[in-house]
């Protein structure tokens, strides 16, 4: 019982309020769509076709998750062991970039390296190999999903490793621990705590993948449920079928995620004086070589497609593009939507986390309280599975009677983006806040520091870093998102990805490349902002 009764009450009611708000937002949109008097649904929901795409959806998502997580682990371990690696801060920042890129741009970048005419194949053909390696098919899908998700996983793992108290490393040195023991007693437990959450997140992202799967899949054998949902809503306009498919997607993916939740999540209680971390391990040449080549390989894998985007982008007349009113307007719109959705996502995530902490603080949490905690956890991650196209169409129907929907569009897009970003923000904030509470809650309670003064003196100085990181995550995600905007399609609401697509759809590939580069630079700038405070904490 480390919280006062009032704090607990506030925490729980904040959580209930967020839960209700999210449920209403999603629920009202879906029921508006269901209640719309649609013509009879055309196709049966569960056909051999649905079965086949469900199977493929899950199969590629499982493989993509496995590859992304398993490859990200060594990268994060190496990066954590080498705090002074040349350009390390930039490698970590670049890792935030794929998420902020419109998917099509990322795919074109990947194709520039791995495609039939890409750098890798050109290199192979100079070696005298005739047949180019082809990535189209499952290989291409996996490659692209790893490109987008490995950096995400590596960053989150790295944060978890860096949160380990400095004392651990001191102790491991004085005990003369071998690398294997360090992994077993320090790194392993730290990672195991976050693996289920991160794997679940990546699994959801890959299961709902749409554009990447179609572009790199090579044919309709590679189709995800999201494609079928899009088709039935945008092309066939068959809302009941679209919702049926969406429910199927949520149910099946949710089941798999529930299985992940049973993985052990050991409690990591550390007591630390909070001194700066110094690592004393990995001083052998073998370890240096391994870490160096791991980081180098991951960086190359990440940077080559980005470089191909960069090289295509600088061919455009960047100054003309950057100073054009179209770009400035779109940048303003995109950034305001991103900021709004980022702030919303962080606020809602904070409310949910505090509610969960408050419930855990109860001496005898009853079934309703435990149920609420579980619901909060599930809701904050499962919203990612609700197709934005379904929410968007539902909201459109709902708001029509109140006037021009394009007037509400920015707020709606921000709200939809908030839902998409919530699971990411939770992954960044929850472990950080829990650690922070473990270290400070008892002391603060015994000193009687509560309420605002605790927030100001104890919580904010520590949490501002994770909060900024989470905010930059959410903003980058919103910046790169095309889906939600495309629904409301109105000339007043032009975002940067929309601008990129509109150039592409009228032969202006050069301009599109240039705009994509500018968008990438904005995302990078955001990431730098997001990592500034953390860097300060690191040095001092």
């Amino acid at each position, binding site marked *: 019982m480390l919280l006062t009764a009032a704090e607990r009450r506030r925490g729980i009611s904040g959580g209930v309020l967020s839960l209700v708000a999210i449920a209403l937002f999603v629920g009202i949109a879906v029921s508006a769509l269901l209640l*719309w008097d649609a013509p009879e649904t055309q196709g049966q929901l569960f056909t051999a076709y649905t079965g086949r795409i469900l199977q493929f959806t899950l199969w590629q998502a499982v493989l993509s998750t496995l590859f992304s997580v398993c490859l990200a682990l060594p990268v994060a371990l190496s990066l954590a062991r080498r705090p002074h690696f040349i350009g390390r801060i930039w490698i970590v920042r670049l890792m935030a970039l794929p998420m902020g890129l419109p998917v*099509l741009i990322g795919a074109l970048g990947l194709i520039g390296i791995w495609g039939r005419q890409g750098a890798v194949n050109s290199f192979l053909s100079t070696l005298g190999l005739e047949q180019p390696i082809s990535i189209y098919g499952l290989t291409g899908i996996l490659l692209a999903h790893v490109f987008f998700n490995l950096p995400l996983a590596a960053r989150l793992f790295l944060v978890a490793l860096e949160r380990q108290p400095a004392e651990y490393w001191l102790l491991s040195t004085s005990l003369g621990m071998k690398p294997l023991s360090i992994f077993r007693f320090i790194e392993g437990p730290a990672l195991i705590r976050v693996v289920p959450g991160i794997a679940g997140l990546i699994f959801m992202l890959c299961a709902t993948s749409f*554009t990447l799967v*179609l572009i790199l899949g090579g*044919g*309709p054998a590679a189709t995800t449920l999201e494609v079928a949902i899009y088709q039935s809503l945008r092309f066939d306009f068959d809302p009941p079928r679209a919702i049926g498919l969406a429910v199927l997607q949520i149910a099946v993916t949710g089941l798999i995620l529930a299985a992940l939740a049973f993985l052990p999540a050991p409690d990591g209680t550390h007591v630390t004086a909070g001194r700066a971390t110094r690592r004393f391990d990995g001083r052998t040449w073998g370890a240096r070589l391994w870490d160096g080549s791991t980081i180098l390989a991951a960086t190359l894998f990440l940077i080559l497609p980005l470089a191909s985007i960069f090289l295509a982008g600088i061919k455009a007349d960047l100054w003309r593009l950057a100073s054009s009113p179209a770009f400035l307007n779109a940048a303003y719109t995109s950034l305001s939507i991103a900021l709004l959705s980022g702030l919303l996502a962080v606020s*809602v995530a904070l409310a949910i986390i505090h509610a969960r902490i408050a419930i855990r603080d109860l001496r005898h949490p009853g079934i309703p309280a435990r149920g609420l905690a579980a619901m909060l956890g599930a809701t904050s991650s499962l919203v990612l599975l609700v197709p934005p196209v379904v929410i968007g*169409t539902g909201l459109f129907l709902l708001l*029509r009677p109140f006037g021009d929907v394009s007037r509400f569009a920015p707020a709606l897009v921000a709200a939809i983006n908030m839902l998409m970003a919530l699971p990411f923000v939770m992954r960044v904030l929850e472990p950080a806040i829990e650690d922070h509470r473990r270290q400070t809650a008892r002391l603060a309670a015994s000193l009687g520091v509560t309420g605002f003064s605790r927030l100001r003196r104890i919580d904010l100085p520590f949490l501002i870093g994770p909060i900024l990181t989470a905010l930059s995550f959410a903003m980058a995600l919103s910046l790169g998102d095309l889906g939600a905007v495309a629904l409301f399609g109105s000339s007043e609401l032009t975002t940067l990805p929309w601008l990129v697509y509109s150039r592409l759809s009228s032969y202006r*590939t050069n301009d599109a490349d240039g705009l994509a580069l500018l968008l990438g630079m904005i995302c990078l700038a955001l990431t730098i902002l997001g990592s500034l405070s953390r860097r300060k904490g690191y040095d001092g």
Partner: protein
Amino acid sequence: MRKLLLSLTVAAATIILTPAARAEDKVLTIYTYESFTADWGPGPKVKAAFEKTCACKVEFVAVADGVALLTRLKLEGETTKADIALGLDTNLISEAKATGLFEPHGLQASSGDGGISVPGNYADDTFLPYDYGHFAIVYDTKTIKNPPRSLKELVEGDPSQKIAIEDPRTSTPGLGLLLWMKSVYGDKAPEAWAKLKGRILTVTPGWSEAYGLFTKGEVPMVLSYTTSPAYHMVEENENRYQAAAFSEGHYVQIEVAGMLKGARDKDLARDFLKFMVSQGFQDVIPTTNWMMPVTKTSQPLPDAFGKLVMPEKTFLMGSDEVAKNRQAWIDEWLNAMSMN
């Protein structure tokens, strides 16, 4: 949390305080697709030209594409603000009519009369054509020295020469190729698709993705329009990309517009449709929308258009036939393409 509450309150306030449509002088609201209203598209010029003649204001509402346009109208139903919907294609006509939202234009617009001429004997009392383009395989002359001269040659050609096509489930060109193959091969279409499959590098969700792969040099052939090379020749002075003429003939996409039953000023809407098939509108189309005009333009078309493939035979299926069979044909395509 407080921020969430605040924004919810603001959203609620916006909903309540939003005034009803303001009373204004004559406004013509046109729903269309995004590339029509882009800075470089026909929209701005068309708007300026029509406003000179009508003492009215033209307002565009742009959505992603023709399919999204129809969906938007279905969602809005009779309360739609649209007076004119511009940018559907012939395949959507049957579905569009089924909404009951459109009204026959009552204009004399058959070939010859208004000077309108579109291939494929298209005529309709509700939807008036404003431009058209034939689907074609566009290829990169640097890579492909012997382009296929027929659909048959495309299907049976060297599988190492790849093509990118669009998905008929999510895009109109993709549906166009499906109908083209059906027109040529009939019941044998699945076998033809199974053969063509070996040449298909990938099937993209829309035209932009496929064309992006093509101009990036990843794939030497792409499903596009006979008019695509004109863009590269006129705007980029580039002769590298050309369309292949197919001896069986080409499937045509005709873009149409219609007026809505709920149009506030029907005479104004009808005036716009008349204007749409006049030179003031048609002159703009070729070099902004990169499609063929449906009437004679006041100036001859740029030279590049003279170099384009002019199909001798045109395929066009009736809209009803397409609506009735689309799902079955897509299923057939899925099966043929998913087989190993």
